[in-house]
């Protein structure tokens, strides 16, 4: 498809200044937070569902692939072009359409930034629960596509637990509404299927989410350890004792020294690991749970347990955690973050294994985990200018993911499959499982024009990770 005529047709649908086609502009859209691929033929910024539908219809007629994109903060290549075509950016569809406190719902466009929704309802005492670390930038549409999590999803669930309805543009340009403001509309739960489908089934143009009353009280604790094994033992003990913290994060000494250097969060530089624990609820519940956590941590040889005394202290502790990935840039020119999940009872075993992987491949690994739900983010350090290091990094990552599956876990907890792990899907799904997913994809996206090459394995390669770092 000649780009010139594509651009001409697009400008008949939207204003000319909402279509990008110059090489300098397109270059920015080669990337997401994982890696860079290729530049799209054009980028278009629709401002309404009708425009999205018209663009999708045009693309279908021309046989041009369409890749929906929010803020481009994804970590699995979901929003980058792999087979040419069009990037459909939802960045301009960023209106909060309705806030309905009495029904505890909000209706938003997909380009609304995650944190902006919480800020819009905060003064009335509400929030939107799922809080990915990129929440200052990432969009709710992207969250829906990836079924995003975040540190606070331990007790309150991930995106799918907070989305009740969608408006969706299908690849033929048709528009449907799924679910609604309430649970239990009869019929199949299309909303539940679409959340986490990574833009391969439809383009979401409106989202109905649950709003949650902010808790009465919150307490954040930092437990400091001289041995990593004591920190992991604490995690197991917390789960086994039936305490459900709102968040339970773990960082190893190597990682937290990097974070401390970058954000001055007050993390102890000489420790082997820390746990960041948070409890929320009624003041009485929080006092009890915080005391229980303090006890469990000390029983498992925490050197010290600090409790944030003020909101500022709490924010500081969290700032360190949420800016962790950025801070790692100080240690290494590049790093590759993994997203495997393991049963929480296997944490000790997994950490030992990651240690072995470090030795075997000679690449340093920093460990930062959503420990409470078994979701690991090992950060493998490397220098992309060195092809040998790149090779070893991929092998190390693959070994870690394979181990997660062996331990009964998953290849991805919240970052998505995208183009990064689609060839690894056979590690965890049989040909029959994948065959059914293909049939379901074909119901929505029979021509495969929507976000091609993502999620499902191509069958052309045999089980390898794909990143390409520029």
């Amino acid at each position, binding site marked *: 498809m000649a780009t010139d005529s594509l651009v001409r047709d697009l400008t008949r649908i939207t204003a000319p200044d909402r279509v990008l086609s110059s090489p300098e502009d397109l270059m920015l859209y080669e990337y997401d937070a994982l890696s860079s691929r290729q530049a799209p033929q054009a980028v278009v910024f629709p401002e309404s569902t009708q425009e999205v539908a018209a663009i999708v219809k045009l693309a279908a007629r021309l046989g041009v692939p369409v890749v929906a994109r929010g803020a481009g903060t994804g970590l699995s290549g979901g929003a980058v072009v792999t087979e040419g075509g069009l990037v459909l950016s939802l960045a301009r569809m960023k209106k909060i359409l309705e806030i*309905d406190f*009495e*029904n505890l*719902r909000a209706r938003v466009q997909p380009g609304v930034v995650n944190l902006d929704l919480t800020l819009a309802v905060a003064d009335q*005492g509400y929030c939107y629960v799922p809080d990915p670390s990129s929440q200052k930038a990432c969009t709710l549409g992207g969250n829906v596509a990836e079924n995003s999590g975040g540190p606070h*999803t331990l007790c309150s*669930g*991930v995106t799918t637990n907070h989305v009740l309805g969608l408006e969706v543009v*299908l690849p033929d340009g048709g*528009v*449907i*509404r*799924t679910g*609604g403001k*309430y649970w*239990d*509309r*009869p*019929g*199949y*739960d*299309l*909303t*539940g*299927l679409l959340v*986490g*489908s990574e833009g391969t089934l439809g383009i979401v143009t409106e989202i109905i989410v649950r709003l949650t*009353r902010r*808790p*009465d009280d919150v307490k954040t604790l930092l437990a400091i350890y001289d041995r990593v094994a004591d920190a992991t033992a604490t995690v197991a003990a917390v789960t*086994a004792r*039936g*305490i*459900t913290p709102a968040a339970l994060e773990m960082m190893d000494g190597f990682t937290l020294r990097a974070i401390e250097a970058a954000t001055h969060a007050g993390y102890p530089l000489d420790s082997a690991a820390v746990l960041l624990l948070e409890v929320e*609820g*009624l003041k*009485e*519940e929080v006092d009890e749970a915080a005391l229980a956590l303090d006890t469990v941590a000390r029983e498992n040889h925490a050197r010290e347990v600090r409790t944030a005394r003020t909101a500022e202290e709490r924010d500081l502790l969290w700032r360190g955690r949420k800016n962790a990935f950025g801070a790692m840039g100080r240690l290494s020119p590049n790093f590759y973050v993994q997203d495997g*999940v393991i*049963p929480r*009872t296997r944490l000790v075993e997994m950490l030992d294994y990651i240690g072995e992987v470090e030795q075997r491949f000679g690449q340093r690994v920093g460990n930062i985990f959503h420990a409470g*739900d*078994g979701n690991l983010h090992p950060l493998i350090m490397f220098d992309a200018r060195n092809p040998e290091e790149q090779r070893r990094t991929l092998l190390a990552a693959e070994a870690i993911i394979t181990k997660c599956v062996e331990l009964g*876990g*998953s*290849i*991805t*907890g*919240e970052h*998505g499959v995208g183009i990064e*792990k689609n060839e690894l899907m056979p590690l*965890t799904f049989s040909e*029959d*499982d994948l065959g*059914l*997913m293909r*049939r*379901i994809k074909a*119901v*929505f996206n029979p021509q495969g024009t929507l976000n091609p090459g993502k999620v499902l394995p191509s069958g052309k390669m045999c089980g390898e990770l794909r990143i390409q770092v520029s």
Partner: protein
Amino acid sequence: MSRATVGTETDFAAIVGESRVSADTATCAGFAVDGVRPHCVVYAASAEQVAEVLRCAASHELAVIPSRNGTKLAIGNPPRRYDVALSLKDMNRVWYYEPDDLVVSVEPGMKFGDLQHFLGRHNLWVPLDPAGGERASVGGLLAANAAGPLRLHFGGPRDMVLGMKIATVDGKVVKTGGRVVKNVAGYDLAKLLIGSYGTLGVIVEATFKLYPRVVERATWLVEPASLATTRSLRRDILRSPLRPLRMTLLNAGAQALLKGEEPGPDRLPGAAGFQVWIEAGGSERVIARYSSELGALGAKLGAPLRRIEDDIAAKIWEPIADFGVWLTREKQVPVILRAAMPIAAAEEFLERAEREAQTENCAVAGIVQLGVGVVELGLVSDRDPRPELIASLRHSATSLGGNLAVTRCPAELKAQIEVWGPPGDDFEVMRKLKAAWDPRNTLSPGRFFGGV
């Protein structure tokens, strides 16, 4: 018996064993759905057997309805065809249990009560209070998405299922999700199966996220003078930092039936007198906080709060959670409706329903899952309510932004009404999904939404 099934019985026997296929008339009658009897009953004992039975049935163009105890089989349109009852009663094993990781995987025929009992050893549970209660099967409560009032605090089945194995009509057992609490690998097909009423595939294993049991609980009763007061109370509680486990509103009709009065339009009181039951969990200090704050909210509205003793509370919550099934089983109430709508519309819907039913000489026993938006109604009258009444109640639910399904009614009435209500603009996709899973319409044909 039709000729088609005579030959296939041997085929089914080859899959599950001769003693596990029955064409006995009385046995088949026990599996009748809306008066339609199957030609044979097949008892499957494993996921693979279920898949093989489905494949075999599909290849002979036979229709299959899976079930366990049948607590929810009355829900749905009359089956368009029904040849084989697939009983899952022998599939009640626990496949995987890791109490320290808070995960369990079980077979669909396991009774929910047995599962809770099993988990109780480690002080764990699946925090659901489904219709059918302890007798509900795991497969059935998932297929019917049977969330009770506990959804207010914990969410519903869709929020607790981590993965599934599903037998499909092409003879495969497919997996979706997994056994870890966070997982975004592949499409989430478990969501499609939950609430699909046995029309896509048969759930042969389900993995649940587990929760620590709430041991210390307390129940309070508030008796607001009017629905307006009830509405204010619900609003105030949801706006407060309190997070009760469940809250239910009972109208006078529901109270009368729960008190043991026999149903009858003239014996059920009119539209006055409401009860709001509230349950919360936590330590003594936490319960004391609930007592004082709920008490203050009630007092502000002139509706005093009363703490109910635990044993009495346990007796009331069971039929409340199981209301739709309980009304039929214990009180022989013939027509049960379930409406779902935005949280704030539910009280008004109950009010309208009472009024509309009254003009038809019909009394309403109604409960509202406050804060959830689900209303269950039993219609009590001397004769079957007219289809126009169902239509008008549905109109009320729709105009309040919700919908209404008839979950139980006599066959004659069912023939004259829409069980599920009208489909929306996403129905075409649902129809295509059904065809992708079940191209020959083998599973529960015609029973679901839009005649799927």
